């Protein structure tokens, strides 16, 4: 069983690069960096083949006993089932492609070895996260990916604002992690173990549906998930995280790490199912986030920030799916999203690189001819994101969520309407982005023409985001459910409410129509009448500003938490407690002065002192008697 090799290889790669990175040639660094993940991907493939061919339910491997204290005995051990297999597949493959892309993208950077070291470390942590068989190890991976995210966002460390963005990302996610940690404490208190499988097995026996403890624990786990996956109310860090290099945005902030929250909830669905209210909250958070982020994406001009908000929005869809117990739909969308969003980020990275680190879409344009491969792949990614019907992977995955948000057993019309609105906005901003970047006149000179290292991963990802959709086709349309069947042992399938089966095709039609009309709106605004958007912007300037700033969350948190904290620590820099001790010193010195005054050196004073002492003594005697 080579399960441990999957996370270990990137770790070894990272270790080599950290220790000897400065002494290796760039070529060697590239080989070690990508090679380790590539090998990992191969082993994943091999393991996956074995897993499917033996039709096992899970593989298990224990490396060593991590701790063993008073019944708390997490081990460093890995658990592979269908859910984690999907995740490690995405992580290793998309990860490998992004590594390959980076070998060219980062070629001129001084921190070449450092970059790959971090990236490898990230892959290792992410794999640990999804393979962990207990929550303690999961937490290790969870924090590990947070660390790598921090390191990679702040990769270009000489810029002050990158460091700020990196810290913000780490701290905000850590707020969520705190909730997660407390959730783990409660889990341990209730089950005396942190083994995920055991907890999942025991939870339904211990708690009835709607149990308060289950509710609290679910919410705490949700807190962790919300932080990591940049959902409301902890979504503010992700747009800033775009300060990192584009491959990082693609890998960490689109494809893998930010979906860790989705993984966590899916992994602990047994607990969430016991807390329907918590599940409802998951759905509400998802729905609210997807709309909020969508509106914000509409107003951004920075190419990567648009993608960032779109990521938040798409993860919102996944949360919505989780909220209606459409587990496999969420995971399906995760996978497809990983493909097309990685593709979009990488393509955007190539564009930005070609335009000398220009992020502003309004300064781009006309790249269709200059960068044809980039254009076509971007178009495929964008179509998938906008869920253009039939030909894109995104259509199938998003459609499933739309359908289940209405028809699933926990679905309702409001979820559906929000999701639909989100879909409409998605296709508007997606094509706005496409039109602004690739159509119109060339505004900035194209410098770097991407080579094979960049284009080949793009092409592969474009392929994946197209054909990826076909492994799960809706009931009304082929009814091909390889993916959900595969996940079924882990994630129960969702049952559809009575009376909805018949209207599934209608929903699909509506979805398709909404997506296409979004494209049309974008076409009107940005190709046909480019002035229109400007007018709109000026006529609703306040609203635009509000959306542009992400609905004011940043300034709200700044006022609520950051400013007070900094203020309190700044005024107390000198440590107010010390005043007390200074006071003691002052009092001592005060007494010293007073008593010193009596030591006047004059003989008669001293005699007086004795006499007064004597009088006091004798008076005392009298009083006492």
């Amino acid at each position, binding site marked *: 069983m080579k399960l441990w090799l999957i996370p270990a290889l990137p770790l070894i790669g990272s270790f080599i690069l950290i220790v000897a990175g400065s002494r290796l040639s760039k070529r060697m660094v590239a080989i070690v960096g990508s090679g380790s993940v590539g090998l990992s991907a191969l082993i994943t493939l091999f393991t996956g083949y074995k897993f499917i061919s033996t039709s096992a339910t899970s593989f298990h491997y224990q490396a060593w006993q991590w701790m063993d204290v*008073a019944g*708390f005995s997490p081990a460093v051990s890995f658990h592979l089932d269908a859910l984690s297999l999907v995740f490690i597949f995405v992580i290793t493959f998309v990860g490998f492609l992004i590594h390959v892309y980076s070998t060219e993208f980062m070629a001129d950077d001084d921190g070449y070895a450092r970059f790959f070291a971090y990236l490898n470390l990230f892959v290792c942590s992410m794999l640990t996260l999804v393979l962990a068989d207990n929550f303690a190890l999961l937490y290790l991976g969870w*924090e590990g990916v947070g660390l790598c995210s921090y390191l990679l966002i702040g990769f270009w460390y000489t810029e002050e604002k990158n460091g700020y963005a990196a810290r913000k990302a780490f701290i905000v996610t850590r707020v969520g992690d*705190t909730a997660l940690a407390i959730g783990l404490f409660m889990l341990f208190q209730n089950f005396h173990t942190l083994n995920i499988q055991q907890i999942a097995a025991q939870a339904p026996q211990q708690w009835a549906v709607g149990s308060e403890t289950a509710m609290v624990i679910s919410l705490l786990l949700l807190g962790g998930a919300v932080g990591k996956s940049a959902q409301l109310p902890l979504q503010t860090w992700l747009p800033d995280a775009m300060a990192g290099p584009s491959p990082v945005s693609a890998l960490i902030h689109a494809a893998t790490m930010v979906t860790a929250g989705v993984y966590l909830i899916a992994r602990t669905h047994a607990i969430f199912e016991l807390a329907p209210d918590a599940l409802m909250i998951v759905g509400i958070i998802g729905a609210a986030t997807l709309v909020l982020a969508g509106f914000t994406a509409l107003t951004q001009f920075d190419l990567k920030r648009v993608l960032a908000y779109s990521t938040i929005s798409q993860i919102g869809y996944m949360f919505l799916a989780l909220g209606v117990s459409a587990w496999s739909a969420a995971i399906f969308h995760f996978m497809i999203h990983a493909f097309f969003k990685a593709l979009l980020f990488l393509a955007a990275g190539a564009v930005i690189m070609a335009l000398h680190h220009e992020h502003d879409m309004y300064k781009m344009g006309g790249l269709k001819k200059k960068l044809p491969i980039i254009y076509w792949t971007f178009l495929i990614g964008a179509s998938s994101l906008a869920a253009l019907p039939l030909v894109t992977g995104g259509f199938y995955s998003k459609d499933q969520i739309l359908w289940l948000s209405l028809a699933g057993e926990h679905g309702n019309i409001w979820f559906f309407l929000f999701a639909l609105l989100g879909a409409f906005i998605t296709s508007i901003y997606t094509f706005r982005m496409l039109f602004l970047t690739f159509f119109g006149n060339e505004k900035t000179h194209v410098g770097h023409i991407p080579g094979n290292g960049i284009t080949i991963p793009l092409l592969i990802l474009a392929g994946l985001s197209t054909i990826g959709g076909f492994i799960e086709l809706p009931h009304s349309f082929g009814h091909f459910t390889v993916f959900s069947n595969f996940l079924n042992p882990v994630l129960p399938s969702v049952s559809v409410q009575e009376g909805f089966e018949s209207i599934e095709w209608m929903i699909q039609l509506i979805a398709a129509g909404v997506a296409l009309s979004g494209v049309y709106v974008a076409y009107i605004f940005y190709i046909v009448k480019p002035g229109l958007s400007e007018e709109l912007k000026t006529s609703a300037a306040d609203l635009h500003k509000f959306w542009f700033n992400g609905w004011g969350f940043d300034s709200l948190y700044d006022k609520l938490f950051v400013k007070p904290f900094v203020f309190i*620590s700044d005024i107390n820099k000198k*440590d107010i407690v010390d005043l*007390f001790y200074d006071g003691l010193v002052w009092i001592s010195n005060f007494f010293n002065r007073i008593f010193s005054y009596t030591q006047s050196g004059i003989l008669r004073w001293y005699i007086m002192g004795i006499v007064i002492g004597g009088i006091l003594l004798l008076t005392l005697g009298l009083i006492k008697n």
Partner: protein
Amino acid sequence: MILVAFIAVLMIGGVIAWITSQWNSILSRWISLIALIVNFVLAIFIWIQKPTIESSNWIVQFSAQWIPSLGVSFSLALDGLSLLMVLLTFFLGIFAVLISWNEIQERVGFFHFNLLWVLAGITGVFITMDLFLFYFFWEVMLIPMYFLIGIWGHENRRYAAYKFFIFTQASGLLMLLSILGLYFIHGRVTGTFTFDYFQLLNTEMPADVARWLMLGFLAAFIVKLPVVPFHTWLPDAHSQASTAGSLILAGLLLKTGAYGLIRFVLPLFPTAAAELAPWAMLFGVIGILYGASLAFAQTDLKRLVAYTSVSHMGFVIFGVFAFNELAMQGVVMQMITHGISTGALFVLAGTIYERIHTREITSMGGFWNKAPFMGTIGLIFVLASLGLPGLGNFVAEFLTLLGAWQANQVLTIFATIGVVAATAYSLRIMQKVFLGNFSSDKIVPDLSLREKIIMVPLVIAIVWLGLFPQSVMNTVKQMISAQFNTEQIISNDTENENGSK
């Protein structure tokens, strides 16, 4: 005998180092290094022989008459906890010598004399089982430490040294009163006047007397630990001491307070301690948050790290008074890992000071560019300080919080929030020192070979503790579970007695 050797080697080594420095200062450096390595090897040897203590709690014991007329004996003993602490002492001691190799150029012999004597005092505190002797060693370590701060410290050293000395001495005297109170109570009840730890255990006394006596012990330990609001000596002492001084202060001296809590307060006054627990935990949490908030505001690198110590030590008292095995294991881990990680941060601050002659982080920045090795090391210990899993501190904090959750949930939530604050101040170190644009007008060379020799073992240790903490935990397992079991037995007994009455 080996326990006596621990102390004797250090004391004699110190004297020899002082004497030889008249002829050759290099020699005195080597002498102290060798003395510490000898001790470290001895301690490792014991550990390898008894990696897990199964049958008896006490690995080695030594006892001799000292002042029989007062019931004082020279009684030393080593159990798992002591062994770990002693190991840590010698381990960090070696680095304290190494880090001062170039830094200390004046009065080298006297420096090493003080260094070794402070370590001897600390070692004594960790292995003595006689309360008089304990107090004796407790005080013995103060004077050399005072000199380490007061002679080789930075610009404000005299003030810092005073403050350190007076705080610890004042609280120590309160402990002395309690020791004596216990001594006489035990003597009156049993007729044998003795300071022997084992005999004083389970002394029967009225509840309010126990409460007062415990407060006396507590005073000494919470000042040393330190617990807010008795912490203000620490930032001054830490920031003003020389690097080796800071290393010893943060790495070892604070641990004597934690050790005292575990070794004396809980076993001697189980009931009174249990009554106090919620308050102690509250103060622990206050310490965690208050220390973090102050750490965030500091611009003096060593002062910043000093306040992180306040915050981290909050976890210790928090965990100790959670009264369960999980938290206690966490506390023991915290003692060790904090010793290593904070010690390393101080060493780092020292190496930076050697290069740019300032501790102000406002005049640092971008050092990664010039000194990536230093940056990597810095990153690792900053991460350790914020409790990243995979490094030792995480194990410590996680176990502490996990255990504390069983005891007090509200306070645990606040303590966990402290981890977020830890992230804020830790990353600030990283940002201000290593990231950003290189802005110093000084040359910042990367770590030298000697500095690497110091740092690499520390890194290995902290990673090892993070991934394989069980080897350490096994060493104290017996001791900790024995402590909680006996307490249960005692409470059961008293219940039975009450019942029968």
